[in-house]
Each structure stands twice: as C-alpha cells, then as structure tokens.
C-alpha cells in the first residue's frame, strides 16, 4: 500500500517537478522552506490540482495517470485532508461537520468509529457548537476528526499547526501523536516547522524549489543535510531512551549510544524513546572534562571536520559522539587556540537540550 | 496709484456691459425662440414646416414630439412649452379650461386620415373587404383609450359590424407609432394606422392600403393651442399663424392630412 507519485505542474514563476515514494505505514513528512511546493504536492495527491500531470498510485490503485488521461476526482480518492486553516463548513455545527464525510461512506466500508474518534480528539463537548465560536486549536481538532471519520486510506495534512499559537500547537501535538499510534491510517504531513516534523515523522522527504532533495529516516537525513545550516537553529537530532528519574533534583536521564543527557524531569515511562534536539550554538568544546562548570551535560566526542559558518568569526564543527553526529558552533580563534583538527578527541559541553 | 486702479476696474466693467448689450441685441434681432410640443403622428410634416418657418421668419423652433397624454401631464406640471400641437381636440380644450392655455387661440390645424394598411402588396383591397375575409391572426390598432386614431379604428370596425368578431385578434399599440411598428415588422399582417405614416409625396409608399372613408368614423381633429408659458412669445403666435398658411398646408397635404 505504498504511495508513489510523479508530478509535474507549471505555474507562473514556479514549477513543481517531483518524484516521491512514501512507505505504507506511519507518518511521512514533507519538509522544506516556504515556497518549496510542499502544499502543492499535497493538493496534487488529493486531486485538487486538475492541471497537474503525472502519475499517482496508492498501492494497487491508480489515482492519476496523465499518459492514459486518467484522473480520479478528489471525492473518489478516499482521502482525508486537513487544511491549514481547518476549513470547516461555517453553516454546520461541529456535529454536522463531523458527520459530513462519514455519512458519505457506506457503513460496511467504515474503518473508524464515531465514539473512538470523538474521544481521541476530545471533541465531545464541542458537538453542538458552531465553527465560528471555536478557538483555533478546537477548530483544527474538529478538522482532523472530520477527516479521520471519513475512513480515509490516506490522511493528508497541510501544515495543520501553522496557523496556531504556541499554546494551541502544544494542545494539538499530542492528538497528532496518538493519531499515528492508535489508528493505522498512513499520513502525509506537510510542515516547515522542524520540531513538528521530528516529533511526528517516521519517514522524511526534503523539498526545495519545487523538487525533492532527499528522502529517508529523519535522524540520518537531517544529519546529512544539516538543515538550517547558516541559521540560528542549526543543530542535530538524536534519539534516546528514558533511563532514570532523579526526584531530588527533578531531573530525568536520557541514554543514547554516545552517553547520557540530563534534562528537566519528564513525565514519561522508563525506557520510552524520545527525540531530542541539540543546537550547535548550545554546544561548546573543551579539551579536558571540567567538573567545576555549571554545565550538566558533557559528551566525549571526536572532531570530524570544520566548516565555515554564516559569520566569518564562527566555525561549525561536526562531531562524532560514538556514532551519533553532533554539531558545535565555536569561534575560529578558539579552534586555533585549542589547536583542534579532525580526529582530535574533545569534550562537548551541552548547555541545553530540547526534548521534542 | 489707487485711484488709477479704481478707474481701471470701472473701464473694464463698462466695456463688459457694452459687449454684453451688443451680444444680446444681436441675439434678439435674430428672432425669438419657441418650444413646441407636437403629437408623434404630426412630427414628420412638422419638421418640414419648421424648416420653412425658420427660414422665412428668422425665429427658432425647438420641437419635442411625443404622446399627447404625456404632454398634458407635463404641461400641467409646469413644462416650458409655448405651443401644443395635439393629436386630438380634447387635450387642448382641457388645458384651456384649466387655465394652462389661452382659450381663444385654439384651432384645428389638421384633420388626420385613417388607413387600413399592410406592407404586403396584395393583402388589403381598396374596399377593405379583407376585414370580412378575416384571413389574419392579428390586426393592430392604436390604444383606443389613448389615441384618436385608435378610437377612430374601433368606430370603423363597429360601424361595419366586424368589431365583436375581431376583438380577440386586436393587438394595441400604445400610440399610433407603435401600431405602425407592429404592422411594419410583420408581427401583425395589417392594421389601422395614420395615412401620414404610409404616405410620401401624396402616394402610399409601399404595400396595400384602404383609405377609410371619413363617413365611417368621427373626424380626427388635431387642435393646436397657445400655452400659458408662450403668452408673450411673438414667435409662438407667428408659428400658429404660419400653420394656416398655404405653404404649410401643402406640406400637410403631401403627408395625407386635410384641414
């Protein structure tokens, strides 16, 4: 049931020409800067861009094949689509919105159930309300529930969090995670926000300027492409497991192949896998392990290479922490002062760790 | 200096007033202007008459043609017409009674002739027997409530005894111009129209026609009257006199009017 698509769409000043393949399970994220063509790809997949040429297959089902003049209209593709701005029907209450898609699926073909979805997205208390009276976060939850209730073969999410403030985002993200885990509907998730992508994606496709750059498992892919190079947020993502909790200091220990990291106490079960992100600017290098520092996390690493950063005073140093890549941002002067070179053993002091 | 400026102004105003006076004198000497409301059926001959009149007298005529009933309403409500050339006798009489026109000035300037006409060359016979045959869907007349020609047409049909049989086929134009339009466009194969509409230079222009004998309907008298607005307008009085002149009457004759 994997998704394969080859798409070509020309617009004034923009051309989309991509080839992509997404695995049959889990969340496939489309990531890239604004204007990369991510949303357009999603619209093509949904059948909302009749001008697009190419071929789209979901499993053994062919949705579009321009060579054969075959184009399955959106309403027959059995998809669920979540729009950036929710796009609820303003004339229907929440219940009417939720029932709209569901009512159009014959009962024997329904694969998700009302109670389950209403509970999953916590929309029970909203059923009688009109869309105009909902908060942004509530609206987006209703939109997701509405899409899911139509028992789609594929869920397409177009930056569902982009229009929300930080608090609403934090409110929605857990629902999205549960969606991926509890319902076995494959999903294509478009976002330009790296933290969302890293938290949700099982498979990642990077896009830029209407083309796909690369595709693969998020961790390795991001290490390879150094996303946001030159940005303030240059950094690395690594996966770790909760190893211990320290109740005295309200800390949790994360274990990964290269060592351990202490972070503020997490309400997670032991052994749970989490992703953390370490920004290059939060990593400093020392030659000996300092114990007289306020910095809690120190990792033993080997210098792999150094590359120029955005500012001429800075260098970006790529490190290897026992197989896990890490980036550090240091001054050229420190590089010379510490006499660093590829292969040199150093201690990486990590000032802060963002748990995604 | 100040005194010079003052005299300068005075010189300017003096010259300005003189120029204006000369200009106005020239204008007045050139003749008066008269606003005339003329019934639609008489518009065509009136244009010819006005052209002669302007050349002969130096007066200027502004012609408005339309339905007599509409002119009545407008004149009652202060429209600045000096002369009304009506399609009937009643309207000028009403206006005189109501004080909107000068009683003694009313006279019949023309008598209209009714004609049963078809653009098809062999449709109407010279005796009007076509009415008896009745081989047509529609027969056009002017609205008898509004137009003297329409009233005359109904009188003709009644006196011949065809009215009741033909009522379902009658289509009414709001005025005689529209009745003509219905026939000319072929939507009604024949109709009662004004002789002036189908006559040119003393002859029926095209198609076939029966000129209805005047004994079959009351005469269609068209009266003219001097209106209150034109009471002091020399050109208006001159024009009314001119309508009785032979020159004007020969124009009327060529359009099928009598007097």
């Amino acid at each position, binding site marked *: 049931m994997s998704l394969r698509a080859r798409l070509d769409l020309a617009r004034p000043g923009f051309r989309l020409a991509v080839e992509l393949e997404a695995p049959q399970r889990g969340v496939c994220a489309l990531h890239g800067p604004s204007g990369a063509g991510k949303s357009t790809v999603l619209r093509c997949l949904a059948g909302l861009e009749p001008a697009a040429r190419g071929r789209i297959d979901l499993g053994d089902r062919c949705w579009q094949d321009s060579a054969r003049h075959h184009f399955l209209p959106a309403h027959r593709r059995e998809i669920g689509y979540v729009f950036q701005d929710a796009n609820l029907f303003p004339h229907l209450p929440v219940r009417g919105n939720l029932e709209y898609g569901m009512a159009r699926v014959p009962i024997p073909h329904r694969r998700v159930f009302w109670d389950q979805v209403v509970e999953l997205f916590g929309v029970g208390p909203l059923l009688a309300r009109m869309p105009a009276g909902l908060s942004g976060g509530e609206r987006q939850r209703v939109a997701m529930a509405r899409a899911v209730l*139509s028992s789609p073969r594929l869920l397409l999410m177009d930056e569902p969090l982009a229009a929300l403030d930080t608090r609403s985002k934090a409110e929605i993200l857990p629902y999205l995670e549960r969606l991926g885990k509890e319902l076995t509907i494959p999903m294509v998730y478009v976002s330009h926000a790296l933290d969302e992508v890293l938290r949700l994606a099982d498979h990642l496709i990077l896009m830029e300027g209407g083309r796909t750059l690369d595709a693969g498992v998020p961790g390795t892919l991001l290490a390879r492409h150094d996303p946001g190079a030159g940005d303030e947020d240059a950094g690395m993502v690594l996966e770790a497991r909760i190893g211990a909790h320290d109740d005295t200091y309200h800390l949790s220990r994360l274990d990964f192949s290269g060592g351990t990291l202490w972070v503020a106490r997490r309400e997670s079960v032991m052994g749970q896998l989490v992703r953390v992100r370490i920004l290059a600017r939060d990593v400093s290098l020392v030659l000996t392990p300092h114990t007289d520092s306020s910095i809690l996390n120190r990792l033993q690493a080997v210098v792999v290479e150094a590359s120029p950063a955005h500012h001429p005073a800075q260098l970006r140093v790529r490190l290897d922490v026992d197989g896990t890549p890490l980036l550090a941002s240091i001054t050229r002067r420190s590089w010379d002062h510490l006499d660093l070179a590829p292969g040199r053993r150093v201690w990486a002091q990590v000032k802060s760790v963002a748990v995604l | 200096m100040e005194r010079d400026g003052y005299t300068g102004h005075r010189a300017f105003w003096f010259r300005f007033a003189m120029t204006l006076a000369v200009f106005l004198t020239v204008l007045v000497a050139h003749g008066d202007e008269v606003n005339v409301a003329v019934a639609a059926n008489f518009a065509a001959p009136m244009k010819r008459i006005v052209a002669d009149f302007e050349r002969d007298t130096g007066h200027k005529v502004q012609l408005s043609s339309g339905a007599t009933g*509409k002119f009545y309403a407008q004149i009652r409500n202060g429209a600045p017409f000096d002369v009304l050339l009506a399609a009937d006798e009643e309207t000028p009489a*009403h206006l005189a009674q109501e004080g909107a026109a000068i009683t003694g000035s009313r006279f019949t300037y023309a008598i209209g002739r009714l004609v049963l006409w078809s653009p098809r060359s062999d449709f109407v016979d010279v005796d009007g027997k076509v009415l008896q045959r009745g081989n047509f869907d529609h027969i056009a007349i002017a609205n008898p409530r509004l137009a003297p020609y329409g009233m005359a047409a109904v009188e003709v049909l009644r006196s011949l005894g065809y009215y009741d049989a033909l009522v379902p086929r009658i289509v009414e134009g*709001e005025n005689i111009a529209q009745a003509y*339009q219905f026939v000319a466009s072929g*939507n009604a194969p024949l109709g009662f129209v004004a002789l002036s509409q189908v006559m040119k230079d003393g002859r029926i222009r095209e198609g076939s026609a029966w000129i209805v004998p005047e004994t079959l309907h009351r005469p269609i008298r068209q009266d003219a009257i001097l209106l209150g607005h034109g009471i002091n307008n020399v050109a208006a009085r001159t024009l009314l006199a001119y309508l009785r002149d032979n020159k004007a009457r020969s124009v009327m004759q060529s359009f099928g009017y009598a007097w």
Partner: protein
Amino acid sequence: MMSLGTEDGVAILLTLKLAGLVTVLLLIVGTPLAWWLAHTRSAWKGPVGAVVALPLVLPPTVLGFYMLLAMGPAGPVGRMTQALGFGLLPFTFTGLVIASLLYSLPFVVQPLQAAFASLGNAPLEAAATLRAGPVDRFFTVVLPLTRPGFLTATVLGFTHTVGEFGVVLMMGGNIPGQTRVISVQIYDHVEAMEYARAHGLAAAMVIFSFLVLALLYRRQRPALL
C-alpha cells in the same frame, strides 16, 4: 364590458403569474450561467458577461424593439419558432415570458455570480475531500452558503419583472389576461388622464416593491446595488 376594478385585478394576477414563472425559470437558467461566469477562465467570459449585462444599460424600448424584430416573421427567432410549429411569439404570454427572461437576466445572474465568487473554492475543496461529488457539493455546501445571494437574486428578479414596462409595451400588444400587465395598465390610466385609477395601482406597486426590498435589506446587505 368588464368593470374597471376587474380589469386591474386581471392585470395584477397576470403580472404575478408572469413574474413568478420568470423568476423560477431565471433561477434554473441563471444558476449554472452565474456559476460558469464566476469560475471560468475562458475567453468567452467577457462577451457572455457583457451580453448578460446588456439589459442593465440598454433602454428597455430598444431591447423590446429588437425582440419585436427578431421574433417577427422575418426575424431569426420568428423563423425558428414558426418552423418548429410554435407560431409567432409577439402578443403572446409565452413571448412575454421569453422577453422578461432576457430583460431580468442580469438581476438574477449578477447577485448569484457575486455570491459564487465570494464563496471561493475552499469549502468546495473541503467537501470534495469528504467524498461529496459535484451535485452533492452544490446542494449541501454552495446552496446553504450562498442563500443570501439566492434571496437577493429571487427578489430582484421578481420585482424587476413586475416593474418591467418598456419591453412589454413594445411587444405585448396590450391584450387583457395575456400581455396587459400592471405597469402597462398604469401607463394607460396616466395617458388616459385617469389619474385616480393610476394612483391606486401605482401606489400598490410602490408599496409592494418597498415592502419586499425593505424586508430584503433588513435581512442582509444585498449582493448587488
């Protein structure tokens, strides 16, 4: 002879029948036309839109005159209707219906077009991804969301047909019960200098139009005007 009051009554009934029928037909014909105009990128959009709007700028008598010629025995429409065995249309109720359709078309199409254009594609796309086909989308999304536009179109189409005069005058023939509608009847009364009867009908018409429009404006801001 009919009593005078009955004549007015016949004209009123005829007018309501004409306006009602024309409004229904215009909604049926005007909706797809307005939809096409609101969404097409075809080069025909300009010419078609202009033809629809022509009655807004042309004097009704001009329109009526051309219709009289076109529907006459020598006109293209007249030839067609004769060939099809319908006879000629002028001086018939059917002819009046057809003339009114053309005459009132912009008053129905333009509010609908504005409503469709302002609706945008977003709700339709949402419905399409939720399994709704085109017809389904129209009735469950477009219709409820553009109801104010439909209301405006219905009211303007109806009242404008009631108020239509020049076209009817040109090709009606003033036949009681067939083509003598209220506006023509009022004109007759005025022309015949029977101002009292004209006042009665005219006042009724003013009050009717005022009430309908007041109701419309109270409910919403109309899409046109």
